[in-house]
């Protein structure tokens, strides 16, 4: 794109929606020029509060996000929304349909919604997510709602990005033992039992409470909260927002803030380094073709996988 990075960043900060939206696309498409623009935006970030919404498919994540947008807009806050749906492993295509539940906000200039596909990423987010959140942050969004793909038990990346992580569940899914499994249940700052009019909501609440009491105390000292909602009828959502705000004030303690940032940036830096190193290696060996040549050498038995990998790395380091 023939725009200089400074000018591009300036437009985004001044509220040019198209400039922002195009940068997000270029980030997602891994265009080489984005890092220069992100560098310009970086000093304008760090203000937005990110709320992660995760849980199995069909529990009502998008509906809950839609209602949260409404409530936060009522408080005159600017809202960014990132919704993630899976990429087909076979065709690379995706149907991104989370917007359906929140389209009524699409003409509200205080709301910006962006759908992303996982594009092969495993942790419930896309590789581009943290950079795209940063663009929204620079756009001046006060709150960013981050809805992950419908997750199972192990997609927990959201916790490293979101200041508050909400796990959305519904009664009647899975047996008791699901609740004590490791993984997703360990990361929730807030547990939302949605569709709570259904049978089993109370039991589910007791089970989660028990699981939380049995578990070791959390390192950060926060006691996870449980909220029952029926998002579609706006039941329990006011309480949910109160709990989010409670967790937010907890997170905003300077010591806590520092801890969160240290952990988040550490992970992001490592991820970024890995990405850059991989790109450099692929550039050096000639991408697909070079990769195929190397693989052929391994198959033919001329060299083993480990020695080949060392050889490539050594060539790069010299």
């Amino acid at each position, binding site marked *: *794109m023939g725009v200089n990075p400074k000018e591009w960043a300036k437009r985004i900060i001044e509220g040019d*929606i*198209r400039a922002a*939206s*195009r940068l*997000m*696309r270029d980030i997602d*498409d*891994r265009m*080489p020029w984005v890092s220069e623009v992100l560098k310009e935006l970086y000093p304008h970030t760090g203000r937005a509060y990110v709320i992660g919404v995760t849980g199995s498919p069909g529990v009502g994540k998008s509906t809950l996000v839609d209602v949260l947008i409404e409530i936060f807009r009522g408080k005159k806050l600017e809202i960014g929304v990132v919704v993630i749906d899976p*990429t*087909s492993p076979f*065709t*690379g*295509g*995706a*149907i*991104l*349909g989370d*917007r*359906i539940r929140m*389209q*009524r906000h*699409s*003409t509200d200039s205080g709301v*910006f*919604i*962006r*759908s992303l*596909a996982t594009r092969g990423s495993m942790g419930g987010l896309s590789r581009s997510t943290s950079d795209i959140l940063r663009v929204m942050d620079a756009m001046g969004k006060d709150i960013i709602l981050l809805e992950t793909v419908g997750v199972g038990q192990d997609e927990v990346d959201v916790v490293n990005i979101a200041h508050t992580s909400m796990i959305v569940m519904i009664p009647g899914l899975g047996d008791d033992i699901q609740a004590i499994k490791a993984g997703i249940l360990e990361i929730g700052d807030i547990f939302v039992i949605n569709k709570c009019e259904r049978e089993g909501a109370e039991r589910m609440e007791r089970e989660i409470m028990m699981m939380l009491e049995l578990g070791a105390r959390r390192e950060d000292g926060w006691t996870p909260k449980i909220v029952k909602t029926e998002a579609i009828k706006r039941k329990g959502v006011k309480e949910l927002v109160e709990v989010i705000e409670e967790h937010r004030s907890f997170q905003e303690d300077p010591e806590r803030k520092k801890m969160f940032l240290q952990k988040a940036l550490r992970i992001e830096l490592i991820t970024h380094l890995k990405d850059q190193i991989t*790109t450099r290696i*692929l*550039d050096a060996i000639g991408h697909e073709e070079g990769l195929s040549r190397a693989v052929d050498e391994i198959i033919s038995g001329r060299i083993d996988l480990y020695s080949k990998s060392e050889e490539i790395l050594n060539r790069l380091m010299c």
Partner: protein
Amino acid sequence: MGQKRKIRILVAKPGLDGHDRGAKIIARGFRDAGFEVIYTGLHQSPEQIVEAAIQEDVDVIGLSSLAGAHNHLFREVLRLLKERSADDIPVFGGGIIPDEDIPKLKEAGILEIFTPGTRVEDVVKWVEENIHPRG
């Protein structure tokens, strides 16, 4: 790293008609062709469609209409795109659209119109041949 961009496409149903089977089938066809399809559901106003297209940075908008209001709604989408300086995003349409309306819609700026009976593969092929994500 100059990898090929995926086509991002918005599939939208403007207006009041309540049938989205066709739109869903076409969305599925696009997905199977490797596109990223943003599907916004039924009863979309032209304003909602245009804002979604901008926020999602799509390469093209596909409008489906079965209820006869295409002349007004399709044109309104084009007008709003222009108003938002986003008229570089091309628009095509499909659905129950009388033959005599087609030339007029094309003249107004709708790139192509697909009528009932068109095979999904042909629509996919048309998109692949005519829509090119920016460099």
